[in-house]
Every structure is written in C-alpha cells, then in structure tokens.
C-alpha cells in the first residue's frame, strides 16, 4: 500500500460514525507487515579479482549485526565466502537461483573484472572442460539482475587490482555491463555504506546516486568538509610528521577530494578512522585509487598525475570542497 492510498483510506473513514477505521486499516497494516517480513532481497554475491577485504568488512557490520542481515534483510543465495554448499552443488545453486529469481535478484560483485585474454585471469569456478570466468559470469548475471551493486573500489572502478601497469586489463563492473551499477566504493567498504545501501534497496528502492554511481547518502560530502581537523587546515596549521594532531594535508591527505562520511561515521562500531589515527586519508573511495593517491605521504599537489594509471578514469571523483 502506498502512502497516498493509506491517507486516502484514513480520510474516507475518519468521518464515519461507525469508527471503522481500525477495522479497515488493521488487515492492511498486517498484510503490509507480513509482506515486508517476507520480503528480503534475494542476493547473488560474486567474488572476482580483489583481496576479499569487502566481505571481511561486511562481517564487521554492527546494528544490524550479520545475523540480522541474514535473517531479516537478505537471502544470500550464492556466496563463495559464506555458503555451506560446495563444489558442483554450489555451482548448480548459482544456475538455479539465477533463473528462479531472474529480474528480481540483486547481484553483488566484489572485485574488478579482468578483461584481457577473455578474462582468463579470474575464474569464479571450473568444470571438467572449461573455466567460468568472472567476465562471463558478471556479464550474464548482470543482465538478469534487478540491481547490480559493486562493493569496494575494485568492483566500482578497478581499484588496486587495476593499478598500473594493470597486467590483467582489469576494470570496474560498470565497464563490462551496459546498465546502471550502484557503486559502493571503499578499500574496503565501510560495512555501514554497504548494509545501508541494501537497506535502502529493500525499503525504498534505488538510492540517489552521485555522478560516479555512488549513493549520495554516504558519499555526498568530502572527508575534508566534516573533518575534525578542518580548523587546523583553515589556520594553515599542518602536521610535520605522522602522529601529529594537526591537519594531515602536508602528509598526503586526500580528504579534500575524497567523498565519504568517514569523519562522522568512522569504522568498526564507530571507533576511529585514518585521520583520527594521526595518518592521512588515502582517498580509497576514489575512482583513481590508488594511482591518484600515491605516493601516499606526499602532499596532493605533488602526487603522481595518475596519467600512467592502468585504468582510464573519466572524471575526478566526488563533490566539491
């Protein structure tokens, strides 16, 4: 039931002398609840070329903890990391559920997609006769999915996997699919950004995205904008060495051109983040990470141009200062 419809019923029944409101509304509310309780996102999660850090980060989710994510938010139908099935059995599940939930499942891709040599640098599985490459699997499942979510910077933009010289021709998911990809970047992703995106898909559908396909909810402002050390920056009071409490710009901080809510949200039950640990932000949510951030400890104007980057970045990420 939509909000308007609900208000309509309320209006119609509010003037009635028979006080029928609750009688009319309750079944609808119950149906609504039952529907929502039943409604979990069917999810297929493919691991491709990355370090597995994003599913490790995902396990650190708090409120909701992982157990609740599994029981109330998603049906994780295929996952190389979590599933109890294995071998041929796991592969048949993938074939089966992708057909059963065609057009309804959310495809999560963790890792970049090697494109060189027909993608032979990553096989998500093998049969006796051939390799099922990440390129093939993501292309096929990407067409069948309702939503495609890239988790982490490798899946979003190529990330460290596609760093120069990018021997494997790796690229983000958006480069192999002709459709919208929701990029939840980060190296690794903050679990809140990812679980929050799933929650948005589940409760309200597609979230608003920035021009790099990232939910503005989490990537709408730069790190610099809300950094606790912003007053030091404004006073040109810069750190001389790692461990200092002043602004980390002098030590390579990428905060001014990195979109993420790290200063507010922080990491692992919200205990800290890189600048709070007296080190620079290295811009891990960016389209050109890591090439555009390195050398990590060199101030931004003197960093490498990213020209020798393995990937072709179309634009510089993020919102304004």
């Amino acid at each position, binding site marked *: 039931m939509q909000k308007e419809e609900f208000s309509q019923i309320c209006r119609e029944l509010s003037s009635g002398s028979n006080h029928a409101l609750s009688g009319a509304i309750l079944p609808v509310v119950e149906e609504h609840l039952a529907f929502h309780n039943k409604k979990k996102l069917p999810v297929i999660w493919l691991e491709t070329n990355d370090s597995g850090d994003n599913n490790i980060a995902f396990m650190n989710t708090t409120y909701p903890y992982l157990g609740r994510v599994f029981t109330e938010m998603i049906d994780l139908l295929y996952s190389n990391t979590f599933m109890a*099935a*294995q071998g041929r059995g796991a592969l048949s599940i993938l074939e089966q559920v992708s057909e059963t939930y065609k057009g309804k499942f959310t495809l999560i891709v963790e890792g970049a997609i090697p494109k060189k040599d027909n993608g032979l640098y990553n096989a998500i599985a093998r049969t006796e006769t051939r390799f099922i490459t990440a390129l093939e699997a993501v292309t096929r499942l990407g067409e069948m999915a309702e939503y495609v979510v890239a988790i982490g910077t490798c899946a979003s933009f190529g990330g460290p996997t596609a760093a120069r010289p990018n021997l494997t021709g790796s690229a983000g998911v958006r480069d192999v699919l002709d459709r919208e990809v929701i990029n939840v970047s980060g190296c690794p992703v903050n679990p809140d950004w990812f679980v929050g995106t799933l929650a948005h898909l589940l409760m309200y559908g597609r979230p608003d995205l920035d021009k790099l396909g990232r939910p503005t909810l989490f990537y709408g402002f730069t790190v610099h904008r809300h950094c606790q050390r912003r007053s030091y920056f404004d006073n040109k009071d810069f750190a001389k060495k790692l461990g200092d409490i002043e602004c980390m710009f002098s030590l390579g901080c990428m905060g001014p051109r990195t979109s993420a809510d790290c200063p507010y949200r922080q990491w692992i039950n919200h205990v800290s983040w890189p600048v709070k640990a007296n080190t620079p932000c290295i811009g891990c949510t960016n389209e050109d990470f890591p090439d555009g951030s390195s050398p990590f400890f060199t101030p931004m104007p003197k960093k490498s141009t990213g020209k020798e980057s393995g990937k072709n970045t179309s634009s510089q990420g993020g919102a304004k200062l």
Partner: protein
Amino acid sequence: MSKQRVMFSPVTRLSGLLSVDVMLENGRVTEANASGTMFRGYEWIMRDRHVTDAVYLTQRICGICSLSHGAVASYLLDELYDNELEDNAQYLRNIMFAADFLQNHIKHFYLFSLPDFIKMPERPPFHGQNPADTRLNPEDNQRLAGHYFEAVKAAQESHQILALFGGKAPHQHSFVHGGVTVAPTADKIEQALALIGNISEFVKSRMVPDTELITRVYSDYFRIGITPWQFLSFGLFRFGAKNEMFLWRSGVLADGQLYPPQLALISEDITSSWFDKTGAEEIKPDPFKPGAYTWVKSVRYAGRYFQVGPLARMIINGFYKGGTATMDRIYARTLETLLLTELVQEWLKDLKPSHPPVNQKSTPVKKEVTAVTDAMRGALLHTALIEDEKVVKYNIITPTVWNFSPKDGHGGRGPLENALVGTEIPGQDMLFTILGRTIRSFDPCISCATHLLDCKGSVKAKVVY
C-alpha cells in the same frame, strides 16, 4: 568406483577462488591438482612507487590477513631507514597484529570450517548443504550452530581493537615504519581491555570446548590428511629497538631437527603455474601455458616443500605435541587463538600511556632488504630493491604459496596436494565433504597466493633466528 576424475569447484568458504582437480581410483585419491584461479600481479603494481607506500598498498593483497602485509612491509622499511623502535610501539604493533590473528582464526573455525562438521539451518546462505556425515547429536549441533553468529561478534570485536589503535580494519593505518602513530591513552587501553575480555570469554567458553567436541566426534580426522614432518615458521611478534627479538621462534623442522631458516635456500618454480619464462628476461603471466593448472607457484626450501601455519608454529615452539593431520591443523589454530587472547591482555597491561610512539627516519641506509614474519596462515616474506626511495623490484612469498604449491619440476607435490593424495573416499556423496575438511584445515587464502612474480636472485643470504 574405478578410475575417475572429479573437479571440485568452487571450493567455497575461504578467501579467494580455488578449484581442486581430483583423480580417484577404487575409492582412493591418487592425484590432486589444486588450482588458484585468480591473478592480480601485485609485484608489478608495487614497481616505481615510493617504497613507503608498501605498508598501505601491500595490505590490499589480502583482506583477511591485511595487517600481516603491513607489518612485514614496516619491518622492511625499519631496516631500510634504520629506524629505532620504542617499546610502546612494539607492544602496540603486537596487540594489533594479534587482534588481526584473532578475527581470522575465529572466522576460520566458525564460518569456514564448522559447516563442514555440523548441520546448519536449511536457509540461505546455508542451503544446499550436504549432510552426509554430520555426527553431532541434535542438542550439541544446535548449540554449536548458535555460536556461529556469536563468533561473528567476537571477530568484529577483534577488529574493533585493531581499529581502535589502527584507524580502521581491514587495511589499518597506524602500524607504519618507525612505530605506531596512535597514542596509547588510558581510555583506549581500557576500551581494548574490555574488548579482549569479551573475546577471551568467547574463546574459553565457546571456541575451545567446541573445537574439543569436534576433535572427539571426528577423531578419525587425526588420521586423515596427514603430511610429513616438514614445518617452517619465520617467527612472530617482534620486540627490541631493531625488531631483533621474536617472542615466538622461527625454525625449519625437517628430519627431526630444528634449524634457523636460511633465506638463501628458498627457491621458486613455475613448472605447473600459468607463468612463462622462455625468452623473457623475467617471468610473465601466461594463462594459456599448456600443462599448467594454477596461478600459485611452487616454493621450496632446500629443494623440499614445507608446511606453514598455526600447526607449524605450535610444533616449532613446543606448544603442541600432536600429529600432522587435518584435525591437528584445526586444533592447533584454536590453541593459538587461546594463547593470543592471553598475550593481548598481558601486552595491554604492559603498555604505558604515552605520545604516539613513532620516529621515522627519512634517508634509506640500504638498497635492498628482505623482511619476514609469520602471518595467520604461516611464513610471509617481502623483499624490496629500491633506487632513490622508489621500488625497482618488490617480491612477496605468501603462506598459501607454501601450502598450496603445485607440482614442481620434479613432479613433487606441495603440502595440500600431499595431504589429499591417499585419502580414502567411502562413497561418492562423501567426496567433497572429506576433501573440503582437509583443504580448509589449511585455511586457504587464494587472493594472497596468486599474485606473485619472480623472486629469483633477490632473496639474500640471511638467517632468521
């Protein structure tokens, strides 16, 4: 069953992508080819970068053991720049390192290994489980299944300790060359003590008894997946101003003798790996190479293969007196987890509230350094050759390369393949169950194993004590 070839793919519940090609004859495994099916080329990525980037960038090799790469890169830079470490820096480093071990081992036992032995609830992501050999009584089974999500929380709290001092996790920020950038203050120490208290409670009241129950009910696995007595460890937890002291010793255990590792005796072989050397000056990836079956290279010490990991550490340090089978590997990992919870508590109490204990020197005194440590899964080595602080060559040998070595030029198998060959398979429905248990007892991590390149000639003659 007569002769048969079976492809076990994907081997789920691990880090990275693994397939195992198995040959069976009359119900026995006669050959096994373990195939890591992802390649990223990290040593190439490291080239031409400022060498201090290594601490952050090499952590991206692996998500589950990221700090171990940051740690060994920091040791390497300490030597390269001739840094002096403060005591507090070493304590903080070891606390963070151990916290990363804890989350890894807890996740490994409960999330990856336990579903091999108990019946999980029939809902995603546990649907489609093969219950062919689940032996626990219903009450025990239900209790252990209930510990699955408690384990997730304990692992999260371990990462929380790491993030408290390290900024974030995975891929922490504060454990850098010259020390640690975060001040150990009373509030942080207290917060970490509270967290390790919870974790310790979980390990004592859940993980240890759960492991013991599994070892009792599946005691036949003390006779399955046996490997020869060839163990190697580079040692773990450094102390001293120059990282010169180890808390847990290094060693090469062979023919009943324990030797200090000599790095010059380490060699690599690409016979069965998708790398090519013909004509090229250096090794190049070649996914079309005939006869090859994996992105993992073979690594040998004095021409022989060695098993690395918690069992190797526990045996070399005299903490474990059991054997070398599948269940020994599982048991040793839990034993190590218990020891680490105690160490973290001690170290936190030894920390003195202070300024951030970091002192980085800025001019390298060497051009080439090899640094080693043990990571969760075993021995880890980084070597860097630099010119003007820029990386000319960076080489990495990870634990999974030792354990998941494919056949070398002489047809010799690595530890995992050896452990699988000879395994009896009583029935077809038991095949993946039995193989899966043994494969996972090595805690495979393929993302870390399958990125490396030429290490020839760059490991110097160096002995690790």
